């Protein structure tokens, strides 16, 4: 019989490979009986893996995830979304007011405020990487934890915060509106940024390495389909359309298809082939967390990552 597993998911395009693998039977081919558990945010997903409610998750590396790894509960086993030159990646946005006041490039962000969801989130990391590259002190960028993406959007639209960075399927429609301007790309500040990773419980990596391998295999097939249709555009338009329709079942499904399809398409970013993992990017992120004292200095790459399942570089 097939192994029953639970996969944690957000209703984002970044989770498309799982949805595709499920819909096109790749999981079934690997003998996996998958049920999805949906989350509103990434952090609880990490906790759910630690508590054993969920077997696999895909999300950005956050402070919470590292702390759970430090407690020996979870491990990163593969790569997900990655920034790549030439593919629309995360964008740096500023409010109209800030733009009019002269913040037309990230270099002028010194002394401005920057929206993040929570301390230790990927937004936090991005903000500091921008400060580092532009050569001003990290503390010159005022961080505003607003918990939710929606709250950040509201704050940015009304000019209460000056800047933010976000994935393209959210950034593009915002930048087209009158209240917000795009001033740069995150990829310029964090090259080869490993945005999301695949992770699982430590117990799975030890007791069921085979299960992890099979999951990653199916996931990789889904990622390949996704990249072919929406990033590399090597498939026919019909096939791409079919894929978008498939994804609409999971993503933006509270909007009519006509409205949802463009945002699904425009939001597509490359998913690592074969769930390849960029170890350098992860090491950089870990180092940043430690430099900000958000995670104990005792966390090592070995505690955080189990590189035995996928190709790394």
């Amino acid at each position, binding site marked *: 019989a097939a192994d029953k597993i639970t996969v944690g998911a957000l209703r984002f395009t970044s989770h498309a490979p799982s949805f595709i693998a499920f819909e096109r039977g790749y999981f079934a081919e690997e003998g996996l009986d998958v049920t999805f*558990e*949906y989350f*509103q945010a990434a952090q*609880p997903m990490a*906790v759910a893996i630690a*508590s054993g*409610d969920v077997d696999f998750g895909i999300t950005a590396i956050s402070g919470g995830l590292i702390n759970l790894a430090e407690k020996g509960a979870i491990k990163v086993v593969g790569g997900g979304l990655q920034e790549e030159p030439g593919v629309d990646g995360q964008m740096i946005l500023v409010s109209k007011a800030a733009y009019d006041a002269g913040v037309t490039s990230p270099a002028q962000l010194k002394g401005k405020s920057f929206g993040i969801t929570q301390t230790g989130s990927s937004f936090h990391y991005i903000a500091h990487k921008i400060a580092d590259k532009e050569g001003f002190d990290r503390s010159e960028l005022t961080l505003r934890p607003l918990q*939710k*993406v*929606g709250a950040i959007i509201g704050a940015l639209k009304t000019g209460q915060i000056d800047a933010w960075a976000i994935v393209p399927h959210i950034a593009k429609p915002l930048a087209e509106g009158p209240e917000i301007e795009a001033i740069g790309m995150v990829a310029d500040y964090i090259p080869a940024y490993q945005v999301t990773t695949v992770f699982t419980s430590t117990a799975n990596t030890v007791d069921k390495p085979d299960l992890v391998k099979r999951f990653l295999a199916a996931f990789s097939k889904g990622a390949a389909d996704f990249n072919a249709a929406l990033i590399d555009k090597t498939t026919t338009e019909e096939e791409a359309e079919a894929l978008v329709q498939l994804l609409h079942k999971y993503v933006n499904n509270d909007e009519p298809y006509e409205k949802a399809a463009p945002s699904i398409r425009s939001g597509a970013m490359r998913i690592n082939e074969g769930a390849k993992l960029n170890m350098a990017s992860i090491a950089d992120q870990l180092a940043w967390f430690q430099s900000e004292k958000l995670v104990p200095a005792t966390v090592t790459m070995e505690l955080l990552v189990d590189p035995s399942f996928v190709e790394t570089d």
Partner: protein
Amino acid sequence: MTSLEQSSLDQTSGGRAAGEQREGLRPVPYRGGGFRPVPIRLIGPFVFLAIVALWEAGSRSGVISNLVLPAPSEAFEAFSYLVESGQLWRHLSASLQRLVIGWTLGTALGITVGLAIGLFSLARAGLLPLVSALFPIPKIALLPLFVIWFGIGEGSKVATILFGTFFPTVIATYGGVDNVDRTLVRMGQSFGLSWRSIVRKIILPGAMPAILSGCRISASIGIILLVAAEMIGAEYGVGAYILMAGSLFATDQLLAGVAILSMLGLIVSWLIGRLERWLLAWRG
């Protein structure tokens, strides 16, 4: 001394002066009344409609920007869509199930612990400080731990509501037990009633008004906590719907969700009112 017989001849007279003519008569000044607000019918609905109408007009004319507040009609549209698509029932049934289970368990446990604190010195000395210390802890703060303790399924959601309703019920119950008229208890003892009889027939019914008003409070806390409870891995549920609307900044859906919670609150409070009228009919 006029004897009774004499004056009783004069049964209809109000004394010597009634009917007599006097000068300088004036009525006593009226100085009573007031300090007793009386219900004025239709004012409530009128104020409500007026606010909605003004708000709608403000939204349509652009005085109230759509960003600040969506028009009531938009919120209503979002609500209609929920009804038509059948999603309403899905959200509502998920939330109601959590509410009913969490509230029932929390209330049952709360009444039990409250009775123990109300009846036994040891329970009071040992448990009351704990209850007082744990009561004011915000449940959202504990969510990350709840996920570990109770999982991301229904467990943690029910637990959030259970914890939220448990403490106020404990406090209402032991307060109610404390306030049961002690002469009734002494009466029971003086007739040789057993301890069980006294608790069952005197203490419990006597504490019932307080317990029910505790239920009223815990039910509204339960509804409020739906949002917090459904922060963790809930796909359906009114709280999850509101959170999703909030994170998408879909203010029309947000308001529709809030209105659903508000109506849910009114309905639950009405139900408890019925229960009170039934259980406390003796109060008249």
